[in-house]
């Protein structure tokens, strides 16, 4: 049977890569609510994790267990020459 507690899906355009969107779903957070700190407001992995922690929801931290690990390994965004 399908699970009841489904991760939220944003309905607005968010500036985040597929892997960040998938990480948000794994963390159980609505990426549309997360302020991106990357170039042009791009959402980074760190933004998601900070948001998940500050939300302080215990189920959220649980959801991030393990699965998040795989995708968290430091993924630096390219350095934009300015």
């Amino acid at each position, binding site marked *: 049977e399908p699970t009841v507690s489904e991760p939220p899906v944003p309905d607005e355009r968010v500036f985040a890569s597929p892997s960040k969107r998938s990480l948000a779903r794994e963390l159980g957070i609505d990426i549309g609510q997360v302020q991106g700190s990357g*170039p042009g407001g791009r959402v980074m992995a760190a933004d998601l994790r900070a948001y998940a922690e500050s939300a302080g929801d215990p189920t959220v931290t649980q959801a991030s267990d393990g699965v998040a690990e795989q995708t968290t390994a430091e993924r630096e965004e390219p350095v934009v020459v300015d």
Partner: protein
Amino acid sequence: MVMGDIATATDLLVIGAGPGGYVAAIRGAQLGLDTTLVEKDAYGGACLNRGCIPSKAFIHGADVAHEAANAEDLGIHADPAIDMRQMQQWKAGVVDQLTSGVEKLCKANGVSLLEGTAAFEDEHTARIAHGGEGQGMETVEFDQAIIATGSRPLAIPGFDFADDPVLSSAELLQMESTPDSLVVVGAGYIGMELSTMLAKLGTDVTVVEMLDDVLPAYEDDIARTVRSRAEDLGVDFHFGEGATGWEHGGDGVVVTTETDDGETAEYHGDAVLVAVGRQPVTDTLELESIGLEPTENGFIETDDRARTAVENVFAVGDVAGEPMLAHKASAEGIVAAEVAADEPAALDQQVIPAAVFTDPEIATVGMTSQKAEAEGFDPVVGEMPLRASGRALSMGESEGFVRIVADESSGMILGGQLVGPNAAELVAEVALAIEMSATLEDVAGTVHTHPTLAEAVMEAAENAQGQAIHTLNR
């Protein structure tokens, strides 16, 4: 699994083995679900048997012959003879290889295959009717189901595909010889792909279209380029006319059309191809048994997890709505299977690219500048005409362009429209750029191989920033 009248049980039942269904079934099995795939006709669905693949095979064949026959300025003199039966056989071989590949991949991933037509009995039971009538029945009990029954060609009043000279795209792609002349009703992407291909193979093509240009879904400069190339190939267009009927005449047919003002006209051809759109297939399913009702347009409504209104039933592909494209079907199939397997997947792709394999090719992704403005962005547009591209010129091509649409303040890439050789390949980079939230600077700062058409993507991004090298900046 036991066959016969006894009920078999499966975790995931997938109905329809097109690019939506077979992909869903494979992913479901990969994720550990006991998965059963039912197909009533042929593995690969419309796409592999009657759509994408056969059309592209013929388009390729037509291109090879046409290019060689029209390369005098390159110093190539050829007068190719075309053996359509042989081309048909070659196409059939390509299709066979791919469809048997699909079957093998399903088996290798552990998908159980059932041949027959599936219909719902209730939310956890489907009845499979094997082969023709009286070939036997089977009942399958499922935890979850994915509907991937696709679409079929739309008919219009006065034209019945059961009549011999009234052809659907599926029938046309089975032709054993090219018609000397053909009337095509509809100048959408399927009508335009097939008209262009046939014109290259020597058919006199007359296109009748209700609207006032080809490819109504595309911007004017794109439609114009494709139309005028088709006109150069000898295609005869009649816009603003709706086809109202046909009758036998001469050796073939006479198609009657009517304008909004009631003016009529007649066009002759060996046959008439009706390519006015496609219709979702739901009538085989007995949806009422699970309380589902299609929308006014015949589609099954789904949420962003590909779920229908019935909690344990998903719908993907053409039957689940526009855009009716194979890769959209597959993308949805993957999400449906993952959600069924309790993965946190969602249909949250930013964009679904689309290509039209006319001459020149068209590919688009994301927003046009107009759309971007309507969405509240402040769009900036960059363009690179292919006549300034060394690769295009060295391929004997000088028409077409790459256009990139971005948000002026953030530089974020929002869309792209590409017209030219291999546009369908080039759009992949733009789609990735959008998914990655790449900026103009990101694309312009990526070194692109010389000489390639892909450089035009970089150049268009530079042009949008006002610093293109090979085009004048605004």
